[in-house]
């Protein structure tokens, strides 16, 4: 009896861990796109921040410094994307692709340059270590709640982030204006909303969130950087954003669903029953993408992005 509960809680905790990077990326997309700025560089930003987070932690022997480094690089990349997309009303897709391409090359190089390896960086102090986790021992035995008894700071940040962003977007003046800019920037402009400022803010905030996702990946439950990172998590985050209909809470659910798919698969593989074992890993891994395409096709009426999403904003006359 006890074992099962622990297993349940453990699984949930694992799902939360797994979902955190995806969720951060999704939230980054949500914030940015609600202001009308498309950012497909989430993947590239995560790669940068995952690496810089580890580097920072390595240099300072402190994961929190690593976190700051990660955020820092997120701000820089956000500014770059913002410069091209917002200031110059450039093609947001090209800008995003450029960042992704650079991320591949530059980080591989830095990995070798800094750590003299092409595979894994050496282990560094990370948020997943016992000392750095948030302990809430008295709920540990309670089913479901118990899953929250030993999570990392980053996972907590991601969850808090969901509600924080939801609150800002839907209950504050700033959020109203952000959404107006994403829907009809010209209307917003005529009412005195500073469209450019809002787009900049959203772009950089989105990048910071994506950067947090990268750090969550390398410094969360793992403690080093792998050259394969972020292994598509950035794109899954994008998918979660779309699947979650561009809302923070939707992004949360989508991320949990996507994360669950893999955890479920791992569980089933290790369990005794034969049928579940038969379903190939590839099916689980590709499920998020199938779901997203399905969402885009089947629910055209519902899965609508902000009306002016991706459209470069040029002032009139």
């Amino acid at each position, binding site marked *: 009896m006890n074992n099962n509960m622990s297993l349940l809680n453990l699984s949930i905790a694992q799902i939360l861990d797994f979902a955190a990077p995806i969720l951060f990326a999704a939230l980054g997309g949500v914030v940015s796109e609600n202001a009308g700025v498309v950012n497909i560089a989430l993947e590239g930003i995560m790669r940068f921040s995952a690496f810089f987070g580890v580097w920072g932690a390595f240099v300072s022997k402190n994961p929190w410094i690593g976190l700051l480094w990660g955020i820092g690089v997120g701000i820089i990349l956000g500014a770059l994307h913002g410069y091209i997309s917002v200031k110059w009303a450039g093609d947001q897709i090209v800008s995003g692709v450029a960042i992704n391409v650079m991320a591949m090359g530059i980080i591989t190089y830095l990995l070798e340059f800094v750590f003299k390896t092409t595979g894994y960086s050496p282990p560094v102090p990370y948020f997943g270590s016992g000392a750095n986790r948030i302990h809430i021992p008295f709920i540990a035995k309670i089913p479901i709640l118990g899953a929250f008894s030993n999570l990392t700071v980053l996972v907590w940040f991601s969850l808090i982030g969901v509600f924080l962003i939801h609150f800002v977007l839907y209950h504050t*003046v700033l959020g*109203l204006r952000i959404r107006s800019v994403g829907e009809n920037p*010209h*209307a917003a402009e005529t*009412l*005195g909303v500073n469209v450019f400022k809002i787009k900049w803010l959203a772009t950089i905030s989105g990048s910071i969130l994506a950067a947090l996702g990268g750090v969550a990946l390398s410094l969360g439950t793992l403690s080093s950087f792998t050259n394969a990172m972020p292994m598509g998590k950035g794109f899954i985050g994008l998918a979660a954003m779309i699947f979650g209909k561009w809302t923070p809470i939707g992004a949360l659910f989508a991320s949990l669903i996507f994360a669950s798919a893999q955890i479920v698969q791992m569980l089933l593989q290790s369990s005794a029953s034969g049928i579940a074992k038969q379903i190939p890993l590839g099916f689980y891994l590709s499920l998020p993408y199938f779901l997203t395409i399905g969402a885009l096709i089947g629910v055209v009426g519902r899965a609508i992005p902000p009306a002016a999403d991706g459209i470069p904003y040029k002032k009139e*006359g």
Partner: protein
Amino acid sequence: MKALELKNITKQFPRVLANDNISFSVEKGEIFSIVGENGAGKSTLMKIVYGLYTPTSGEIYVFGKKVEMKSPQDAIKLKIGMVHQEFMLIPRFTVTENIVLGDEPRKGPIFDFKRAVNEIKELSEKYGLKVDPREKVANLPVGIQQRVEILKILRRGAEILIFDEPTAVLTPEETEDLFKTLRALKESGKTILFISHKLKEVMEISDRIAVLRRGKLQGIVKKEDTNERELARMMVGRDVVLEIPRVEVKRGPAILSVRDLAVKDHRGILKLKGVSFDVHAGEVVGIAGVEGNGQAELVNALIGFTRPVKGTITLNGQEMKMITPYNVRNKGMAYIPEDRKRRGLVLPFKIRENIIMGQHTLYPFSKNGILNDKAIDDFSTKKLDEFDIRPRDIYVRAGNLSGGNQQKVIVAREMSMKHNFLLASQPTRGLDIGAMEFVYNHIIEEKKKGVAILLISLELSEVMGLSDRILVLYEGKIVGERTPDQTTEEELGMMMLGITEKERSLQ
């Protein structure tokens, strides 16, 4: 007291003098209308008053004070508000959110939605503009959406309200409601500028009316001193007379038959509300009407860009279901589009490429899918000469040609394709006299060859000069049919503006 005064306002654009030395004043509490044809300069003038444009020269006085406005924000501060023709609303947001955006009631950073709702309730009460503050704008009918726009500017303290073609999208009932609102606003001391080309409405609601024509102010009249016929005459006049030769051609069988055709526009509003007509071989049928009365939708349905809501289109005896541009062209239709840059040409393509577009899959321009450059070059060179296109260089990019030459390329292209029906939609828009003459001559040539021609034009003189039969389109329906010798431009003008026969005879 003068709410607004314009002195010698002039606005010069690179190629066009949009406003030419316009001066007038508007009294507080007055409903002042500005009328004029498309292109007369009303829009530009209003954008100046609203702070979107700066005048090239001239002065503006608001409540006696000379002002300079660099943006709509300045205008708002001066208590000027504008209700645009295309609403500046966010469909996903509620009425309240739309109205308070940019000036939200707040508790610190938090948006005080409840307080905003109450504010809207009060405002709505005060001006008698009933709205549901919590409803999403997307779910509202157009008339109510307009009320939201009005409340938006009232909330910011607008004393001078500008309405740009407000009834273009309203039903007759909604128009009545709007007028009630305008009268109420006038009662409470607001000054209203009403821009429109619908003379009947202008006569109903205004105190005074200013008429613009080709950028100049034709005159200002008090409602009591004028009537629709007068206004139409002031609006419509002509300065250059283009003699179009009358050619008699024996009419053949009906090539195009349209029955009961109804079409929506891109916003989903029903713009063409059921028209029926035929076009015969060797005849020019002209559709006269002010822009926005369903012409664009008629064209879109005929060319296959929009699926009609109901009705049939029969071309050369075959009923066309599921029209695409490809199959109507196959069935013998040629099309001169109203927007040559968007719909007529691929601007980065050279003349030689544009001139064969549409028949590029045919011999001799291509065989088995492979283009035959020599044939294309020969054809293009021939056409350049035949149509006097300048510069005489088939390698010039279409985007570098003048408007007239661009149109010539399109005409050359369309005429050389096998067709017996020509849809000419505003074929002389933006062209100078010479180019216009050229187009007219070619239409007459076509007519002589027995082509059935449907001419859709906003230029009355053009319609009168070219057509054998004229159909007047007003609010999506055909309100009259005439032959040129049975009518005058004035009569047509009035029909185009919605004045019925009875009303005409009373004046």
